[in-house]
């Protein structure tokens, strides 16, 4: 295929995509001249170029469409649903031919006469008025016929009427058309619309600068660039490790580090595409489906500008289509039912994309009938997907997730849209294939929300390197929620057992443990080693929390995921492999598979129930805390209130009325020093205090917090950790105790920010570091 044709194909496809978008929009605003102009231009450009390239079949079809569009644009015809349907058919027809050209290099031998007739017919009302007024009576009757059968193929009757109109057009061809079809220029005077040529031209002129600053790049080339950047990241990791000891290399390797990181980001950005690329296909889908299913639905889209890696975007196209179908078929009820239920007869389907950290969340929400949990339960039992006992135990939310199992469908009837029980399964499989997750949330009568959690990129992920069996393994950071360190002296008592299932008490919650060593080498003893430090990586795999006991921890590293041979993937523990900075190979552990593998074993041995169940209620009251140490005691600051952590020279702490304050970004910040950190530090260096500029100048750490509208600082000796703290409930009353939280297994006082004195009131009683101590484990 020559360059020109290829260019033409790409351009045409883009034009058709735009046309599709505009057409569905047009239905809502049938008189929008800008939209009509846009659509007209797309078809017109195709027609112009095809004539030049000699694709006569395409040209004929485009020509027929153009005539119709011309009438629309000139306001001689209204964009009523039948017309739009016809135009969408034209769009599909054009796409088919373009595809054939792409695949075979020629237009193929298909016959478009039916479609062309159809398009001619749609022009009829206008032409009837304009040109064949004499026959007005006849045409009007026939036009009506044609309209009524918009969705059917051309029947005898229609054909008859079409014949009449074809002869009309043939008899009176607008002279401009003939001249124009031989003219390849993309922007020509619209043949049937001499009235408004200006509406077209300025727009085209505006578009050109954008075209000059962008460039089409072959995806294969981008993939290759991504691979090369992956290689570079690996090499960088190795260089960094190799040069760590050499001071002469520090600068160079730091520079290399930065450039690599930048390059990586740029290449990744180059591969990013807005989700609107797939969202834009949805209005058409929704339109077609609502028509064929007899539903009424309004599509709302949000966050279209959210960007996602090109390959991931491709991968979620099918799942998303499935999800939308499901929503329209199973979710949104027919208008009568909706009305009966007191809802707006028009349902709402909401597509929303939003970036959350290293993931993009795509939600498909409808306000339809929702999923009846009981139905799911009985269906799952009926299909043998779950035992009745297990079904009785599962919380509703988890029961809902059963719809993702293969062979599950609650639809009473199989429609041609969905109900075969493959949809949701496909959604999940496809999303999980790219490392994403799917969740469903539904309330009977209120609607269903399907949430796809897609990683931003596939190729390079942050991971923690752990050691086991004298080998390195990579744990994706995304699944890692925290690390628990168990010193040798606690090794003997830290693990508790129910039969042969090891458990660890994490902040009062029983965490099932998996010993990586014995998982990988069956027969190896499951026990913590009391001669060295032990580590538990607390992993969150699809909401299943478990602890992975590893022999040791190495550094976190950005790893480049390399695919594994299917033979090794089938083991079901590894999602890939990677090359580490020290040139060692490491297998990437798949927390989800590990959970699945070991979870099954656990429930067989002992029906201990979901160990997480009890703590689930706690979830709501949990939040992250910054764990700090001040004056030898630990205290917690709610992480949401922490603005920043500053290390300031002691000399910058000034005193107002005996109270320490910090001049922080031009504002006076009251500093809380209950731990006596400031006093301690200044005592220790009182001799050196005069030498403020000296290298030994002491520094203190001030945690800058938000308390309502004001900001306060807290002087601490050290910031220890960030950890999730659970609420504590008073024994007996069950009331939540304030001021304390469970952090790293210890009851820890939460700093009362409100208690920090307001300035400039001279210090009275400082806020209490709430009582700490008391270990649980």
């Amino acid at each position, binding site marked *: 295929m020559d360059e020109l044709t290829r260019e033409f194909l790409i351009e045409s496809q883009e034009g058709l995509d735009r046309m599709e978008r505009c057409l569905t929009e047009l239905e809502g605003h049938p008189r929008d001249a800008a939209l009509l102009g846009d659509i007209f231009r797309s078809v017109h450009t195709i027609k112009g170029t095809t004539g030049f390239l000699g694709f006569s079949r395409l040209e004929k079809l485009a020509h027929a469409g153009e005539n119709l569009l011309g009438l629309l644009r000139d306001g001689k015809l209204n964009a009523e649903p039948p017309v739009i349907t016809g135009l969408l058919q034209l769009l599909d027809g054009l796409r088919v031919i373009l595809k054939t050209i792409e695949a075979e290099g020629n237009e193929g031998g298909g016959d478009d006469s039916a479609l062309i007739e159809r398009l001619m017919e749609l022009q009829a009302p206008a032409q009837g008025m304009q040109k064949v007024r004499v026959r007005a009576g006849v045409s009007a009757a026939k036009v009506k016929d044609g309209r009524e059968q918009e969705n059917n193929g051309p029947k005898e009757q229609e054909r008859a009427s079409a014949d009449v109109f074809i002869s009309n057009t043939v008899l009176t061809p607008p002279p401009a058309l003939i001249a124009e079809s031989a003219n390849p220029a993309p922007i020509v005077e619209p043949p049937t619309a001499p009235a408004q040529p200006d509406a077209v031209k300025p727009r085209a002129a505006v578009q050109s600068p954008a075209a000059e600053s962008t460039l089409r790049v072959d995806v294969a080339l981008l993939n290759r660039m991504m*691979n090369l950047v*992956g*290689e570079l990241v*690996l090499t960088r990791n190795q260089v960094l490790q190799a040069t760590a000891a050499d001071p002469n290399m520090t600068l160079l390797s730091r520079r290399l580090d930065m450039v690599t990181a930048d390059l990586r980001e740029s290449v990744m950005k180059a591969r990013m595409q807005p989700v609107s690329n797939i969202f834009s296909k949805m209005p058409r889908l929704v339109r077609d489906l609502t028509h064929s299913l007899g539903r009424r639905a309004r599509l709302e889209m949000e966050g279209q500008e959210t960007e996602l890696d090109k390959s991931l975007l491709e991968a979620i196209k099918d799942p998303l289509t499935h999800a939308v179908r499901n929503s329209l078929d199973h979710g949104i009820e027919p208008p009568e039912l909706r009305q009966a239920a007191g809802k707006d007869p028009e349902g709402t389907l909401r597509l929303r994309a939003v970036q959350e950290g290293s993931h993009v969340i795509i939600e498909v929400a409808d306000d339809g009938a929702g999923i009846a949990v009981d139905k799911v339960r009985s269906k799952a039992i009926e299909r043998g997907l779950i035992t009745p006992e297990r079904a009785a135990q599962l919380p509703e939310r988890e029961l809902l997730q059963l719809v993702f199992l293969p062979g599950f469908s609650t639809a009473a009837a199989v429609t041609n849209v969905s109900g075969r029980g493959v949809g949701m399964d496909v959604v999940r499989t496809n999303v999980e294939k790219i490392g994403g997750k799917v969740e469903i949330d539904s309330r009977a009568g209120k609607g269903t929300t399907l949430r796809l959690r897609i990683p931003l990129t596939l190729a390079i992920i942050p991971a923690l390197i752990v050691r086991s*069996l004298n*080998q390195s393994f990579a744990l994706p950071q995304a699944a890692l929620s925290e690390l628990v360190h168990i010193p040798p002296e606690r090794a003997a008592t830290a693990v508790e057992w129910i039969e042969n299932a090891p458990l660890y008490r994490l902040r009062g919650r029983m965490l099932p443990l998996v010993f990586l060593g014995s998982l*990988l*080498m069956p027969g190896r003893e499951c026990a913590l080693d009391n001669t060295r430090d032990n580590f538990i990586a607390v992993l969150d795999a699809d909401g299943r929390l478990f602890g992975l006991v590893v022999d040791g921890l190495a550094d976190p590293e950005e790893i480049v995921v*390399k*695919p*594994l*041979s*299917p*033979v*090794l993937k*089938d*083991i079901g*523990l*590894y999602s*890939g*492999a*990677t*090359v580490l900075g020290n*040139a*060692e*190979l*490491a*297998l990437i552990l798949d927390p989800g598979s590990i959970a699945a593998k070991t979870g099954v074993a656990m429930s067989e041995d002992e029906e201990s129930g979901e160990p997480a169940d009890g703590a689930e209620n706690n979830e709501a009251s949990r939040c992250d805390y910054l764990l700090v140490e001040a004056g030898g005691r630990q205290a917690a600051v709610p992480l949401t209130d922490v603005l920043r952590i500053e290390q300031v020279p002691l000399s910058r702490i000034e005193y107002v009325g005996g109270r320490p304050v910090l001049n922080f970004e031009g504002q006076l910040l009251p500093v809380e020093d209950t731990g006596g950190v400031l006093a301690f530090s200044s005592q220790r260096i009182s001799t050196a205090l005069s030498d403020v500029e000296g290298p030994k100048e002491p520094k203190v750490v001030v945690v800058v917090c938000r308390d309502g509208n004001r900001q306060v600082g807290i002087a601490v000796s050290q910031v220890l950790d960030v950890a999730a703290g659970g609420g504590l409930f008073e024994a007996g009353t069950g009331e939540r105790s304030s001021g304390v939280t469970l952090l790293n297994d210890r009851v820890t006082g939460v700093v009362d920010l409100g208690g920090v004195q307001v300035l400039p009131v001279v210090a009275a009683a400082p806020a209490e570091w709430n009582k700490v101590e008391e270990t649980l484990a």
Partner: protein
Amino acid sequence: MKTADADVKRRKKTAAVAEVCSVRVGPTLFGVRICHILEIIGSARPQPVPLAPAYVGGLVHYRGDVLTTVSLRQLLGLPPKEGAQDILVIESASGNFGLLVDSVGEVLTVSSTDFEPTPATLVDHRKALLAGAYKLKDGLLVMLELDRLDPMRLGGAQAA
């Protein structure tokens, strides 16, 4: 008469010579056509994969890719060898893989006139891995059936 005919035919058809890389595994000299070899990685220590099928010799890093290696020793029922081994990187339709051998020898030019098919007396599963042998002056060069050594194929065979 018939055998003589066939003999003549064969000689005619296969006067061609082939270049074969010889590798040693245990006591046997095996041959791999060099056109299938992408690269030879000398004295490598593949990273073991816990829980992998026994014939998997581990993983090696090859030009930015992670290759699965197949241990010829294991396939032939020989005890594992300590220390570094050589790896042939083999090009295969389903993706490249590594072939773990004791040591790589030299490239030999063999004539098809010296070719003998695999003897029928060999055990079936072993026979499938071999493509026949070339008679050399000082012994046999046993040709490997590379298609059968592909980890994908081996995986399928074991599952079946």
